[in-house]
């Protein structure tokens, strides 16, 4: 049985949360760390800390072994190969690496297609590639209440499209895109397909091969792991063809005065001393998630978002407006909303409660921690006709009671701010 209250016992920070009645609902930004992850890191520091790859002394070998086994474990978790599993800092770096290296690999002008629901991490790297190498970035519209379909993509690809890069789950709307068919079709047309899995790998079963993609990005800190570690997963074929992104130690076979010979994958893409404890911590996080089973985690979050949407309907708070698909089948545990008066306000400066005030007051009134802002998805936020939203996002340790607290906060803020 999946029991969030039992799960909390593994998270030391829940002692403080209980003491101060904090309801943590900012999991799309980052998740808490179970003691299993903390212990793995501390244990590494206290017993095997040393640099990897070249140590032929005992703790050097232990560190190398821990690092390699972490890679194997994480690779297997998402159905990829160890040599196709590259450690980076975060999903952002993974997407920058992909944009830069793929663009240089293709070596001529082309078009890359992204959707309006992308996180800035899947927009700005392409804008930089466009400034640097002259490729063209095309952003297609996306519906705010249903997932992307192959039809949406098909309408937008042209004969120049060489890369399509899409998010698996929207971090603003919670939309779950079914990427399998999209991937299959792109594959058949010889178009490279990149998946931003930052919001899916932590929350549902994700299999790299099933997605029919070439490259996939995710972040450790959003799945119980440390910050400073993330993954770019790819097929060995494409990674072997891609030129290195950063240069330095570990990523070379040989260095001469005027050229270098790159190492094999995955080392080719890991320049310098890696985040060793980050990899070890993320591997421990993966074990924790595997224990809970990803199917059950998805089920639990589906229940929470369904309950949230039901409760919203039921309470029918006039000032509350929320965004994203209403069908929990295609919706992750993400709830973005705003509060506004129904009639034109008397006040000269608009009739919305500013999301910053929502977030601030929710914390002070109910201990409910929600984020406010554009959530690094400005193009999508703007398309909602607002500058910002407040956002609650769930994870394994959240309960229906947490959702109740959220709505208590919303009601109290309404009373306070909308007189």
């Amino acid at each position, binding site marked *: 049985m999946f029991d969030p209250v039992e799960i909390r016992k593994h998270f030391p920070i829940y002692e403080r949360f209980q003491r101060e009645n904090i309801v943590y609902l900012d999991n799309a930004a980052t998740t808490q760390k179970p003691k299993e992850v903390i212990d793995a890191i501390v244990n590494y520091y206290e017993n095997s800390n040393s640099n990897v790859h070249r140590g032929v002394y005992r703790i050097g070998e232990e560190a190398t072994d821990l690092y390699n086994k972490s890679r194997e474990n994480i690779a297997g978790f998402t159905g990829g190969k160890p040599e196709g599993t590259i450690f980076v800092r975060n999903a952002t770096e993974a997407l920058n690496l992909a944009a830069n290296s793929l663009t240089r690999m293709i070596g001529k002008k082309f078009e890359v297609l992204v959707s309006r629901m992308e996180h800035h991490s899947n927009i700005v790297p392409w804008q930089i590639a466009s400034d640097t190498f002259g490729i063209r970035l095309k952003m297609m519209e996306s519906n705010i209440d249903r997932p992307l379909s192959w039809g949406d993509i098909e309408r937008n690809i042209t004969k120049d499209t060489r890369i399509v890069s899409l998010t698996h789950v929207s971090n603003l709307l919670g939309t779950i895109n079914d990427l399998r068919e999209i991937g299959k079709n792109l594959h058949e047309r010889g178009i490279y397909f990149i998946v931003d899995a930052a919001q899916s790998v932590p929350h549902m079963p994700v299999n790299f091969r099933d997605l029919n993609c070439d490259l996939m990005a995710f972040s450790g800190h959003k799945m119980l792991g440390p910050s400073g570690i993330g993954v770019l997963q790819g097929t060995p074929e494409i990674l072997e063809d891609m030129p290195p992104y950063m240069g330095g130690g570990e990523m070379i076979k040989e260095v001469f005065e005027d050229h270098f010979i790159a190492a094999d994958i995955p080392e080719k893409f890991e320049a310098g001393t890696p985040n060793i404890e980050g990899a070890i911590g993320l591997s421990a996080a993966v074990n924790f998630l595997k224990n809970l089973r990803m199917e059950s985690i998805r089920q639990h979050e589906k229940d929470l978002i369904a309950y949230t949407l039901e409760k919203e309907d039921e309470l029918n708070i006039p000032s509350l407006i929320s965004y994203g698909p209403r069908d929990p089948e295609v919706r992750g545990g993400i709830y973005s909303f705003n509060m506004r008066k129904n009639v034109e306000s008397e006040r000269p*400066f608009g009739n919305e409660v*500013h999301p*910053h005030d929502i977030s601030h007051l929710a914390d002070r009134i109910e201990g409910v921690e929600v984020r406010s*802002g554009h959530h690094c998805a400005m193009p999508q936020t703007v398309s909602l006709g607002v500058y910002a939203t407040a956002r609650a996002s769930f994870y394994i340790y959240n309960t229906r009671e947490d959702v109740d607290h959220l709505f208590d906060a919303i009601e109290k803020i309404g009373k306070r701010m909308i*007189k």
Partner: protein
Amino acid sequence: MSEDIIYSAIIDEHYEEPRNFGKIENPDENIMETNPTCGDTIAMYLRLGDGKIKDIKYVARGCLISVASASILSERVSGKDIKEILKMKKEDILSYLGIDLGPAREKCALLSYDALIKMLKKYESETNQ
């Protein structure tokens, strides 16, 4: 924690009825400032003379803190010596608000202050030439 400690009654009042809200036609200085994290925006207008602020108005769109602090600021500086105002510190502004702000909200509170200082510095450098 009770609601009342959170945002003071003074802030609430300024938020509901901001003082000096509006525009000045043909101002001596004007500026538009934005806080990129939350999109808070303020347009501020000054009429200046004899080394003093003769009139100050603004149009603000933003959160409780940024609107109220613009209102409070406008009351405080109206009619004051420019040199004196330039001596004011960020801390003074924050203490006027009378609540303990975290680093993220400080930016909201200081938006109007930053706008004012920028205009006054520009004015000073122009008139001193």
